[in-house]
Each structure stands twice: as C-alpha cells, then as structure tokens.
C-alpha cells in the first residue's frame, strides 16, 4: 500500500519578510528555505504508519527544482521515493490541490498526509481541498492518530480542547505539532537519499481562482510608552489600561 506525504518548501520562520519588486510576492534576497515545519510531523507519521503496517512512503511536492532540497530531506528521514510536480508559476491552493489529487489518484494511495498548513501563505486548506477532489475522508489539525485496518480514529485540536473523529480509509490527515516527534535524518539516511529517485513531471494544468492584487507590510506601530522600571509603575499601567486603552 502506498502512503503519500505532500510537502511544501517554505521560507524559514526566522526569516525577515520583505515585499519583492513585483509588489505581489516576497523579496527572495537572503531568504532561506526549509521543509514546512508541519510537514515534518506528516513525514514522521507516514514513516510510523509504514513501520506498523507496511507499505511504501512516497513524497509529492508541487513547485520548482528548488523543492528538491525539501524532498531530499524527506527521503533522508526514510521516505522511499518522490515525485516533483513541476510548475514555475504561482499556484493558489485550489490549483495545487488539483495537481496533488491527480498524482494521488495515479499512485492509488489510500493514506495521505499533509502538514496542517504551510507557513508561507498560512492557508491551511490544501489537504481538505485535495481530499474533497478525491472524494476521500479528511481529518485536519490531528494530534493523535490510530489506523486499524480500514478504521481511522483521529484527535483534532479545536478551541479549548480536542475532538475525536472516527472515519475510514481512504483518508487525508493534516498533521499538527504534537502528533509525534519527527526523527532526525541519520548519516546513512542522508547518503541513501542521494541515490533515491525523484520522478519529475509537469503538474496537471489548473486555473487559479485567487489573484494576488498586492502584497504589503503591516503599518509600523507608533512607539509605545515605557511606564516605568520598577513596581511603582504598576498603578500607572493599570490606570492607562483602564482610562486610555479602556481594555479593563
């Protein structure tokens, strides 16, 4: 059985973001890219699922040659093979999901993992869209997962708690931090990853529904007020919160 993990290649969260000269995307100067942090939990869960029930873990990513860095890292962690669905142009989540759904259908995979969101556009929607296009079940923001035969029990994070969802294969799971502790790639894994094949093909054609009109930075905040440097500042702080900000 094939287990597919969909991964994205994103700017490191410690990176400063500036708007590029086109006014619609980020300035690539000095930006380092990493495996999307939530995808690491997805890769780990796929590897654990394989260790328990057998199968083959296939990494799928939509993008350019640059995505190969992220794909290699997933392979080094222990994934078996990878497919890069190439497209040089910007795709919205809908168009990314279309390409992924086509590939997952071709792979005939019944367990699909995503990170719960990519930390670039922060959409948190590609997993659900892909599932919907495939007619698969889907549980998002998962922090605990059990797959027993065709039966799937997953805990997902909600406001103030968790909800336990029961469903069945085929299923798309989007991984939240806390689902597991992603393994580090071993030296052996890194060496082996270099030999593993990354299949390349054109991403299935799809139209974008979402057009970026412009990108801009949030307005800088006016400098705040240092109320004081010891405990004597407390009454003044409380007065300001009450009378000026009116928040307490």
């Amino acid at each position, binding site marked *: 059985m094939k287990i597919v993990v969909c991964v994205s290649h994103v700017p490191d*969260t*410690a990176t400063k*973001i500036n708007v590029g000269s086109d006014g619609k995307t980020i300035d690539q100067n000095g930006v380092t890219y990493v495996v999307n*942090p939530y995808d690491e939990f997805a890769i780990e869960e796929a590897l654990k699922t394989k260790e328990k029930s057998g199968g083959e873990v296939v990494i799928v990513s939509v993008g350019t040659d640059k995505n190969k860095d992220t794909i290699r890292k997933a392979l080094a962690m222990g994934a078996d093979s990878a497919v890069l669905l190439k497209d040089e142009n910007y795709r919205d989540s*809908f168009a990314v999901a279309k390409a992924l759904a086509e590939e997952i259908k071709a792979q005939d995979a019944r367990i699909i993992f995503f990170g719960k969101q990519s*930390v670039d556009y*922060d959409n*948190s*929607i*590609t997993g*659900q*869209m892909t599932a*919907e296009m495939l007619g698969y*079940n*889907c*549980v*998002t*923001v998962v922090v605990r997962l059990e797959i027993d035969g065709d039966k799937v029990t997953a805990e*997902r*994070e*909600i*406001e*103030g*708690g*968790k*909800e*336990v*969802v*029961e*469903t069945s294969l085929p299923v798309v799971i989007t991984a939240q*931090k*806390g689902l597991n502790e992603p393994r580090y790639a071993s030296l052996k894994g890194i060496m082996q990853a270099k030999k593993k094949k990354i299949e390349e093909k054109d991403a299935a054609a799809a139209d*974008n*529904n*979402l*057009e*970026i*009109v*412009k*990108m*801009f*930075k*949030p307005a800088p*905040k006016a*400098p*705040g*007020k*240092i*109320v004081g*440097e*010891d*405990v004597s*500042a*407390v009454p003044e*702080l*409380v007065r300001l*919160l009450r009378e000026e*900000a009116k*928040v*307490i």
Partner: protein
Amino acid sequence: MGKVLVFVEQRNNVVKKASYEAVTAAKKFGEVEAVCTGANVEGLDALAGYGATKVTHLKSADFENYTPSGYAKAFADYAKDSGAEVVLFSNTAMGKDLAPRVAVKLNAGLAVDVVSFNGDGVEATAVRPVYAGKALVEVKVNSAVKVYTLRPNTFAAETDGSKGDVNVVEVSDVDLGSKVVEIKKSEGKLDVAEADVIVSGGRGLKGPEHFNLVEALADSLGAAVGASRAVVDAGWRPHSEQVGQTGKTVSPSLYVAVGISGAIQHLAGMRSSKYIVAINKDKDAPIFQVADYGIVADAFEILPELTNEIKKIKAE
C-alpha cells in the same frame, strides 16, 4: 448587490460569537442569509438583528456533534440551491475545516483569515495576513462563487436587538463518512484563539513552576494563558497555548507579554492585538517595539503587584 450565505457555527446548540461578527460583516455583500447546521440550535432568531434577512436551520439529530462530511455536504447542497454568490465562514477550527471542502463542492475560490474588505458588493477584494502577519496580501477571488473565512475578533458584531423567523429544513441523508464521537475539553481553560485578553509567558519566567504567576494574572483579568515557542519547545507549557508562527495567530483586545523577548515568529503572531503590554527586564528586547505600554523590570517583581491591582479594580 448579490446574495450572501453565512455559515453559522454552533457548539452544544449555542451560536458562537464569531458567527454574529460574520453576519454583521456579510451585509456589505448584499442580502444576507444565515445558515446553521445543528440538532436543535437555540437563539437563531436573534441573527435577524445582526442583519440576516433570512435564517435557516439545517436540522438533523446527526448534527448534534460536528461531522465534517455531513456539515460540508448539507451546507454546500443548500448553498448551491440558494444561488449564493458569496459564502462566509469564521476562521475557527470548524470554519477552517469546512470552508475548503465547501469551496471545492461549489467550485469556488477561497480566501482565508480575512481581516478586512476593500469595497462593497461581490467585487470587494479581501485583505489577509500571510507569513503569520509579517506581510499582508490583498486578494481577489475570480470564481463565480466566492468563499471567505473571517478572522474572529476582527469584525464588529452589531445588533439592533430585533428577532426574526427561523426557517427549519430537516436534513435526512446525512453523510456520516467522518464524525466526531467525543469532545475532550481542556479543564476549564480559555483558549488563546478565542480569548479577548491573553497573558503570555516566556523564558523570562525561568521555569514551568513560575507560570502560576502568569495564571494568577490571567485569572484576575479573565484572560487565557499563552506561551512563547521557547517555553513550549522546552516542555513547560502545552502547544495549544503557543502564540506565534508555528502556534496560533491572535488578535485580542489586550495582550500581556511577560518575560518574552519577542522573537520575530512571536511578534508575527500577536502584533495585531489592539493593545500590547510588555513586561521584560531587558529594555532592548524587541517586544518593546510593538508594545503600547512597557515596564522594564523583572517579571517576578511586577506580576504579584499587577495581579493585586487588577483584583482591586475588578472588585470595585
């Protein structure tokens, strides 16, 4: 002006505050219909006061708990029949889960986590944060049907207090392909994603045992407890409390950062709070660049006194 459908979210048959915000915001698109999936939801008549000209309760005993497949199908089927051009959700755990499913069913473009709209009617463009708020984008949805999720605590909920009729539609063929069988509540805790006031602690607290000081202040303010990534990674606090780029993005009325230096990932997740208070002994900490009010001092010195002062006021 077009027709706009708002997905009204309920938990335990009670409408969530974010849905009142969404109904109020929906008026700018045209004629508003509020649609709620549930078993026996109370208070739907009040949605008229927020601006809904029609309120529909999609009703089934199977809707008592959330079912992703069931809610998505029932709501999308209804939306298709209604001829809505705009569909709004709240950007909550349920809204985020549902909106993309519904968008695909409606072959619609989706813009999530919207914080404002430019213009009125169906041609309005949406503004939303990306890179956890380090930047924003203005987006235009080009499909015939447009779906948006609205960030909670960002749009005002306004009612004239009037009540209206509720149109009840019994749903018989519920798709139970996936369903919630149990809800595990975190013991009596307010979630940072929903809180109007948040008190967050960071490494300046020096150890998990000192978070009782943060909790005491939070209690006095009726606030949720948040945490920086550093203390979550160190295992002092659960991930559900983490504010920032790999945690939750929040915009409460008041955000109190205690012993948090203000790493770029953290600032990204809380800078849109209406008022920010920083307590940190390092006067050069980046948190002071976004703070409205700062106290440069040791958290251990300030917290007990601040908690006392707040308690005094609340008792008045």
